[in-house]
C-alpha cells in the first residue's frame, strides 16, 4: 500500500522549477557505453580510459584533426638522424602543468624511461617502447629517443606524458592511490580530472591555461551507461549531449528527432573475409585443416570475383559503410589503396564462373564443382555467431558462391571459438575484422610473416597468415621511409600485393555512428575534417572543440529537473513516514477494540 501510494504520488507530482541551480556554466555530457578500468595512464587499457588519458595529458605529438598526420603536442618540432635511429624532439616552451610547474623535456624522458624500467608502467602502452634503445633529456628543451631499429610510429606515440614531479615518488604503479585526484588531477591537457565515481561517472574541468587555449565548455562529464538503449533514451531526454557506437537501427531512429543531429563518419575498422590458402606457422610448417583446393589462387580469385562489396555495404550495413579495397581504411586517405582498373577485382559472377571453368573445376550434377582429384568445392565459412554483420554476410556470401558452383557450410560460433579456430588454421573461409591506427604500420603488420603463430600455435597477430617476400620487402621499406609521399606509395603497393594473392577480401569499412543534442551544442571538431568522428578519435579534438549552442532555454529546462526531484524526494519521504504512522495507529486501535 505504501509503495502504491509512493508510486502514484511520484507520478502525479507537478513540475517544481528550481530557483537554486542557476547559470552554472556550460557542461558537456558524454554517454559512455564502455567501462573505465583506471585513471592511471600507465595501467588504463579500456578504450574509455585511454580517452581519459588523452583529455588529461598532452602527448608528445598527436594525429591532427584535419587529416590525422602527426602534429605538435608537448614537442614543438622533431628531426631524425640519417640512420633513422635517433629522434630529437624540441619541447614546447611555456607549457605548464596544472599545479603551475613548467613542462620540460624531463617529463617525457621520465615517462618513457619509467616504461622501460617498470613492468607495470608498460601495461597499457608498452608496445610503443619495446623497440626503444635509450631515452635522454640533455636539457629542458630537448628530448632524445634512440631506437634499436627504425620505427616510423615515432611521431604518433600514443602515450600520455605525465608530470615527473608527481609520478616519480610513486613506487607501485598498481597502487589504488594512482587513481586518485591528488595524482591524476595534475595534467597538461585540455581537460583536468576533478571527480571520479567508480562505475558511474568522471568529471573534468576545462584547463584555463591549456597551451592551445581553454576549451569553450567549462565542464566535461563522462557518464557510464551499461545499456545502449538506455543511453539513446537519455540523449532523447536531454540527460546527455553526445553519444556514439550507435547501431544502424538506433541511428536511423534518431535521425528524425527534434534537437538531435546525427553524425556518420568513416571508421577505422575493416571487415574482411579471410581465405585459408594453406596457412603455415612462423617456421613455415603447415597448420590447421584448411581445404587444400584453396591453395589454388584461381579458386581464391573466383571467390573474390563473386563477392559484391557494394551489396554488403547497402544490405548488411544499411548503407553505413564504404566498400573495402585494401587493409588501410578509407579514413586514412593518404595511405588507403585505390586499385587501378587493371588491379580491381570487379563483382562478376560470369567472370568468376569462367575463371573456375578455365581452371578445370567442372560442375557436377548437383551444380557443385569438382576438383580434378574428385574433391567437391565445398568450404566451411566461419564467423561470429553473435554479430548480425556476420550472420547477414554469411548468407550473401553463401548465395554468391553457390552461383559459381561452390558449396558453403556456415559455421557461426562464439568469439573465442572463432579466435581459436583461426589461430589454429582450422577454417576454410572466415569473417574477420580489425580496428586500425592512423599510422599504417599496424594495419600492414597484420599480414607479415613474423605475425604468424609460433610452433606452439601461440603469439600470432596475423590476420591472414600471409607471408610473401614482395610484401615483406615493401613492408620493411615503408617502415624506414620517412618521406610521407614515398611511404604512402609503398604502403599502397603492399596492399596491392596482398590483394593480388586473394588471401582475403576486404569487405567494407564500418561507419562511426554518433548523435548529439544540437540545441545544446552547435559543433564539434571532427577528425578527419570535414566528415570525421566526434568521439573516439586519435586525439581529443572532438570534445576540445565542442561549441555550445547559444540558447538560454536549454539551460533553464535542465535546471528544472533539480527542483523536481527534490520535490519527489520530499513526497516519497512524507508518504513513507505518513504511511508508517497510519499503519501504527490502526494496529493500536485494533488492540483497543478487541
Amino acid at each position, binding site marked *: *500500500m*505504501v*509503495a*502504491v501510494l*509512493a*508510486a502514484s504520488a*511520484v507520478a502525479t507530482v507537478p513540475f517544481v522549477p528550481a530557483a537554486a*541551480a542557476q547559470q*552554472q556554466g556550460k*557542461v558537456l*555530457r558524454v554517454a559512455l557505453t564502455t*567501462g573505465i*578500468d*583506471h585513471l592511471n595512464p600507465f*595501467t588504463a*587499457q*579500456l578504450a574509455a580510459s585511454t580517452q581519459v588519458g588523452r583529455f588529461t595529458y598532452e602527448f608528445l605529438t598527436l594525429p591532427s584533426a584535419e587529416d590525422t598526420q602527426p602534429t605538435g603536442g608537448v614537442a614543438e618540432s622533431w628531426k631524425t638522424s640519417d640512420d633513422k635511429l635517433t629522434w630529437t624532439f624540441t619541447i614546447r616552451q611555456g607549457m605548464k602543468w596544472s599545479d603551475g610547474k613548467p613542462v620540460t623535456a624531463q617529463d617525457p624522458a621520465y615517462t618513457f624511461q619509467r616504461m622501460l624500467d617498470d*613492468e607495470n608502467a*608498460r*601495461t597499457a602502452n*608498452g*608496445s610503443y617502447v*619495446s623497440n626503444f634503445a635509450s631515452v635522454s633529456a640533455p636539457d629542458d628543451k630537448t628530448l632524445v629517443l634512440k631506437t634499436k631499429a627504425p620505427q616510423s610510429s615515432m611521431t604518433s606515440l600514443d602515450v600520455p606524458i605525465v608530470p615527473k614531479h608527481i609520478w616519480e615518488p610513486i613506487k607501485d604503479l598498481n597502487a*589504488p592511490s594512482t587513481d586518485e585526484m591528488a595524482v591524476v588531477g595534475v595534467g597538461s591537457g585540455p581537460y583536468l580530472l576533478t*571527480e571520479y*565515481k*567508480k*562505475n*558511474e*561517472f568522471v568529471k573534468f574541468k576545462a584547463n584555463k591555461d591549456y597551451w592551445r587555449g581553454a576549451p569553450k565548455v567549462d565542464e566535461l562529464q563522462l*557518464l*557510464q*551507461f*551499461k*545499456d545502449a*538503449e*538506455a543511453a539513446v*533514451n*537519455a540523449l532523447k531526454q*536531454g*540527460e546527455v549531449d553526445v553519444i556514439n557506437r550507435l547501431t544502424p537501427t538506433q541511428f536511423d531512429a534518431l535521425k528524425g528527432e527534434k534537437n538531435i543531429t546525427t553524425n556518420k563518419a568513416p571508421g577505422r575498422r575493416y571487415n574482411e573475409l579471410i581465405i585459408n590458402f594453406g596457412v603455415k606457422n612462423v617456421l613455415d610448417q603447415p597448420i590447421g585443416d584448411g581445404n587444400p583446393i584453396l591453395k589454388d589462387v584461381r579458386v581464391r580469385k573466383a571467390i573474390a570475383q563473386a563477392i559484391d562489396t557494394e551489396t554488403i555495404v547497402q544490405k548488411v550495413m544499411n548503407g553505413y559503410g564504404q566498400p573495402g579495397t585494401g587493409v588501410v581504411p578509407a579514413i586514412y586517405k593518404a595511405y588507403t589503396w585505390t586499385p587501378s582498373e587493371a588491379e580491381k577485382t570487379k563483382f562478376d559472377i560470369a567472370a568468376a564462373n569462367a575463371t573456375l571453368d578455365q581452371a578445370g573445376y567442372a560442375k557436377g550434377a548437383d551444380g557443385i564443382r569438382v576438383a580434378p582429384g574428385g574433391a567437391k568445392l565445398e568450404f566451411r565459412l566461419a564467423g561470429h555467431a553473435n554479430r548480425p554483420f556476420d550472420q547477414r554476410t554469411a548468407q550473401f556470401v553463401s548465395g554468391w558462391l553457390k552461383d559459381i558452383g561452390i558449396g558453403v557450410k556456415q559455421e557461426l560460433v562464439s*568469439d*573465442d571459438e572463432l*579466435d*581459436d579456430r583461426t589461430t589454429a588454421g582450422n577454417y576454410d573461409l572466415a569473417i574477420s575484422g580489425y580496428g586500425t*591506427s592512423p599510422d599504417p604500420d*599496424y594495419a600492414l603488420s597484420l599480414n607479415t610473416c613474423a605475425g604468424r603463430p*609460433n610452433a606452439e600455435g601461440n*603469439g600470432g*597477430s596475423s590476420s591472414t597468415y600471409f607471408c610473401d617476400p614482395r610484401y615483406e620487402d615493401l613492408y620493411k621499406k615503408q617502415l624506414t621511409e620517412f618521406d610521407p609521399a614515398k611511404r604512402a606509395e609503398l604502403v599502397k603497393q603492399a596492399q596491392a600485393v596482398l590483394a593480388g594473392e586473394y588471401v582475403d577480401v576486404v569487405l567494407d569499412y564500418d561507419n562511426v555512428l554518433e548523435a548529439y543534442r544540437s540545441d545544446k551544442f552547435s559543433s564539434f571538431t571532427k577528425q578527419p575534417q570535414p566528415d570525421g568522428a566526434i568521439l573516439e578519435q586519435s586525439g581529443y579534438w572532438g570534445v576540445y572543440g565542442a561549441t555550445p549552442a547559444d540558447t538560454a532555454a536549454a539551460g533553464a529546462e535542465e535546471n528544472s*529537473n*533539480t527542483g*523536481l*526531484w*527534490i520535490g*519527489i524526494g520530499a513526497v*516519497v519521504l512524507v508518504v513513507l513516514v505518513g504511511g508508517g504512522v497510519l499503519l501504527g495507529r490502526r494496529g493500536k486501535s*485494533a488492540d483497543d*477494540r*478487541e
Partner: protein
Amino acid sequence: MTEALSSLDQTPALVDPGERRGGTGTARFVLSKIGGALASLALVVVLGFFLFRTLPGDPVRFMVRDRPTDPKMMAELRAQMGVDKPLLRQFWDYVAGLLQGDMGVSYLQRRPVFDMVGERLWPTILLVGSATVLAVLLGLWLGVRAGWRRGSRFDKVQTGLALTLWSVPQFWLGLMLLVAGNGLFPSRGMHSPDVEPGFFSEGLDVLHHLVLPCVTLLVVFYAQYMLVMRSSLIGEMNSDYLTTARAKGLRDDLVRKRHAVPNALLPTVTLVFMQFGMVVSGAVSVEAVFSWPGLGQLLYEALRGPDLPVLQGVFVTLAGAVVLMNLLAELLYRVLDPRVRTA
C-alpha cells in the same frame, strides 16, 4: 547465467524435514545448520572455480584485442595474471587466497576482486533491499485482501495482474519505465554528477535514482508474495480456530488480523528470506538497464570478458548470500513456529 546460478543455489536451500527430529536443544540445531551452510559454501567455491574454467577464451587476447601488442608483452601479461600455471595450482592459490579474504585480482581492471565486490555490494543491497521491503508489504497486503475475499472481483483482478506482472521480462519492463519516465527520473547510475555535496542533498539524489529500478523490481517481485500469502490464507480459512474466534463474536476483520494472518504468515517469512538471496542475482538485468553500480552489473561486465576472478568473486558472494539467508530463514522459522521446535 541466472539459470545456472539459481539451479546451484537451490541445493543448499532444501529443507530436510527429517533434520527437525529430536529437539535435543537449540545449540545442536543451530550448530548443525551452520555446519550445513559451511559445507554448501565449500561446494560453491569448488564449483565456482572449475565451472568458470570451462569457459573458452584467452583473457590476454581479449584484453589486447584491436591493439598492436607484441607476443613478448602478451606472455608477460599471462605471467602477471598467473594463467600460465597449471589448473590445480591455480585452484590451490585461489583457495589459499580466499581463506585470507583475497579473491584474486581482476584480469581486466587489475584491482583486487574483494574491493570490487565490496564497493558494488552496498548499491545492490540498497536496491534489492528497498524493493524487497516494498514488495513484501504490498504483496502481503494485497494477498490478505484477495485471499479473504476469495473469488471476488478484487481477488480475480489482483491475481490476474500479479500473474501477468510476474511473467514480464525485467529488462523490458525497465526499458518501458525508462521511456515512460520521460526524463522525470535519471536513467543511469545512483549519483548525479551535479549534486552539491551534503548528506541531505546526496541522499535525495540517490533516492531519486532509486525510483525506477526499484519500481521495476517491485512490480515483478510483489506477485509471488501476494500469491503465497493469498493461498496460505485460504488454507487457514476453514480451520477450527477461526470458527472458534468467530463464535466468540469477534468482528470479521479482527478474526482476519489477529488469528488468520499471523498463522498464514509463516510460509511467507521463509519465502522472503529465500527470495532475498535469489533477488540479488535476479537484479542483473535491472542493474544493467539502469546502469546501477551493483553486483549484478559487475557480473554482467565480467561475463563479457570473461574476467574469471571477478566472476568467481561475484559467484561466491551471491551464493554466500543465498546460503546465509537460508540459514536465517531456518533459524527464524524455529523461533516463529513453536511446532518446529517441539516436533
